[in-house]
């Protein structure tokens, strides 16, 4: 590695789709043309996290951080930065510019982050096993195989306090111990990479940016529980992650880090991929196993738990991607290093996909116990366009809406449950004053109703009823009775549904009724949607005093609902109006108002 400089280009999906591939090509061309091929290496890394400002380019060793880099900028980066040693200031992130600091540490987005799971994302080329190994990759596995007994591994994991990052937070070491306690014979290790939460992409980025960490963790788990076979159940919608995993498995097998007799230890472990096909319910362990078996992904009652009777009736451990990504580090640095991070009940870090109405959308990793305020305002840079924060939803469709008064809650499993949400897998959606709470609840119910497998009545019927009530309310036809009915149904679904999907599907409703009742009342009593989102409650009116009769609105109206002579005040026919809002946008005289 005799290169003088490294140009890291983010190869996460968001950056790649934003002409990131063309950017890599342009940089390579410039490097070649300027005879720098022995001095400068271009590395396509995994996700650097700052998706909002992609494509991201980082130059080492000086740690310069460029944002929104286009292929056309390649020449300037090479000519100015690489050859002349002058920072291209127009490509720096604003905040870094103002502080005169070009390094990543100076950027607000990264300051409060702490990376364990994403330790290699944006640092290594995910397609090269050597780069993973150079960052202590597979050392955890080596230590486990040669210095530890399977029970030591499980004990270490228990001491670390690691809990399942898929959402429920079950202690991972305990889960492993259940499967390990089963009599010898075929056992399976399954990685759940079927990230179904809409608005979340933590696992996608981990798999794309650091696929070997998951393979290493699965081998460690296989050793601990006595499984020789592993499956990664991954969404078919993630082609790049699938490619990188397939490549990583081939490389690891080639290096003797997977397959027969790993590193001469006598332990054998192989991994195969199985593709999901778009079913949110497969986040439920028993449904996921049914899907790997090639069946409809329907959940089964538990017990028996998969650790006792799982895939094809054999003991099976299922861990989520993020949970697994922690394991190699814990084995290498020790449980007592890990359990110093986080809160009393929840150790380590959490990766969030911070999205919605926040300035810096992206992928972040923070120590447990960080507050929502720090995440949304310090890391996320606050709300877009200076609007007011209304709510944050953690846990996706299974989670709850968190109002501003809980912004200072330190995040861990227990604290989020206490305020009516859940940790979930890591989606963190920020809503502002323009978002309508009943409408968002309706969006989530629409999703869960569509995804309900239909096996149990509370979820199948209850979800549909909730959705009907929410639709009624958003259409301005709700009654006070609907609220009580929604509360009753939510309670029943929560208590009587077979699996986690149904048990949590009502959370968006329950939490929003608890904290945003005033918005529901407004929709029902005043037929008003303060966010202007519920179209049936909207009315567009032209102020005759402001209207100059320019006819712009009449021309743009798709249904000819606006009448009026040139230079005379125009009028909207409310019967014909479809509330598309085009007149509102086109009017230069603020004569069209929306209420």
């Amino acid at each position, binding site marked *: 590695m005799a290169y003088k400089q490294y140009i890291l280009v983010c190869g996460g999906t968001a950056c790649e789709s934003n002409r990131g591939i063309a950017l890599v090509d342009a940089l390579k061309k410039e490097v070649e043309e300027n005879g720098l091929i022995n001095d400068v290496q271009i590395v396509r890394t995994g996700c650097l996290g700052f998706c909002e400002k992609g494509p991201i380019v980082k130059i080492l060793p000086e740690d310069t951080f460029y944002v929104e880099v286009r292929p056309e900028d390649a020449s300037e980066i090479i000519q100015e930065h690489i050859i002349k040693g002058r920072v291209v200031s127009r490509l720096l992130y604003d905040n870094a510019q103002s502080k005169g600091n070009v390094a990543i540490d100076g950027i607000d987005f990264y300051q409060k982050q702490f990376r364990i799971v994403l330790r290699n994302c944006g640092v290594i080329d995910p397609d090269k096993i050597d780069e993973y190994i150079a960052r202590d990759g597979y050392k955890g596995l080596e230590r486990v195989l040669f210095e530890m007994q399977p029970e030591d591994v499980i004990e270490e994991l228990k001491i670390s306090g690691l809990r399942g990052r898929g959402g429920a937070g079950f202690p991972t070491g305990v889960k492993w111990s259940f499967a390990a306690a089963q009599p010898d014979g075929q056992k399976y290790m399954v990685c759940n990479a079927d990230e179904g939460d809409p608005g979340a992409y933590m696992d996608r980025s981990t798999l794309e940016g650091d696929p070997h960490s998951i393979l290493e963790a699965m081998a460690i788990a296989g050793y601990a529980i006595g499984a020789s076979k592993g499956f990664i159940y991954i969404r078919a919608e993630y082609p790049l992650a699938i490619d990188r995993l397939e490549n990583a498995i081939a490389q690891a097998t080639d290096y003797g880090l997977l397959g027969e007799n790993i590193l001469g230890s006598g332990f054998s472990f192989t991994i195969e991929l199985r593709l999901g096909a778009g*079913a949110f319910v497969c986040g439920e362990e028993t449904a996921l196993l049914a899907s790997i078996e090639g069946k*409809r992904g329907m959940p089964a009652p538990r017990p028996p738990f998969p650790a006792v009777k799982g895939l094809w009736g054999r003991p099976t451990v299922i861990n989520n991607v993020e949970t697994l990504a922690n394991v190699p580090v814990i084995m290498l640095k020790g449980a007592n290093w890990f359990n110093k991070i986080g809160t009393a009940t929840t150790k380590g870090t959490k990766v969030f996909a911070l999205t919605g109405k926040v300035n810096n959308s992206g992928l972040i990793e923070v120590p447990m116990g960080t507050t929502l305020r720090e995440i949304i305002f310090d890391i996320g840079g606050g709300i877009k366009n200076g609007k007011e924060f209304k709510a944050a939803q953690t846990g996706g469709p299974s989670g709850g809406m968190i109002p501003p008064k809980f912004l200072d809650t330190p995040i861990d499993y227990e604290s989020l449950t206490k305020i009516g949400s859940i940790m979930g897998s890591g989606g963190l959606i920020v809503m502002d004053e323009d*978002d309508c709470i009943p409408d968002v609840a309706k969006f989530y119910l629409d999703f869960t109703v569509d995804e309900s497998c239909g096996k149990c009545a509370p979820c199948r019927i209850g979800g549909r009823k909730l959705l009907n009530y929410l639709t009624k309310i958003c259409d301005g036809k709700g009654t006070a009775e609907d609220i009580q009915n929604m509360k009753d149904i939510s309670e029943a679904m929560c208590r009587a549904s077979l699996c986690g999907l149904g048990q949590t599907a009502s959370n968006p409703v329950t939490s929003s009724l608890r904290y945003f009742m005033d918005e529901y009342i407004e929709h029902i009593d005043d037929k008003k949607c303060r966010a202007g989102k519920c179209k049936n409650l909207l009315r567009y009116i032209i102020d005759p005093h402001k209207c100059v009769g320019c006819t712009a609105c009449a021309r743009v109206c798709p249904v000819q609902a606006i009448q009026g002579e040139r230079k005379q005040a125009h009028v909207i026919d409310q019967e014909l109006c479809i509330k598309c809002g085009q007149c509102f946008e086109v009017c230069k005289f603020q004569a069209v108002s929306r209420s």
Partner: protein
Amino acid sequence: MSSETTPVEKVETLTPELIEFIAEWKTKPGNLIMVLHRVQQEFGYIPRKIAFEVADRLDVPLAKIYGVMTFYNFFKLKKPGRNQIQVCMGTACYLKGGEDIIAEIEGILGVGLNTVTPDGEFSVEAVRCIGCCGLAPVMVINGKVYGKVQPQDLHAIIADIKKV
């Protein structure tokens, strides 16, 4: 697994590669979903005739195959347009106007969701989160991701694709 273009014009018979793929997977437990993925990759959807063939070759009842196909969102039973437009309906995209994108595309194409235009050129569907939330609202056309899409951009984007 990525398919830049979906070759929907092929005659719908099992190709030698498909036959080989099915033979390779026949003895592996849990093969059905993997085989269906491969079929859809080939044809862009799962033709009924092929489903019969798969049933035959894997020795599973056709009812089971349809049970699986209809359970999962990913599998298509109808032939999509030559150009497939997928509009993301994840939460971030929804909040940032994904619905407006769909409405605009429907207007431009003159067909609703999950319907193919009469010339067979386009079909538009709402899809689950594709994991590009930082670019919301997002759509995918023939495997290419378009981020921060504005309704007013759509005419030009679709016109560009028509040209190709």
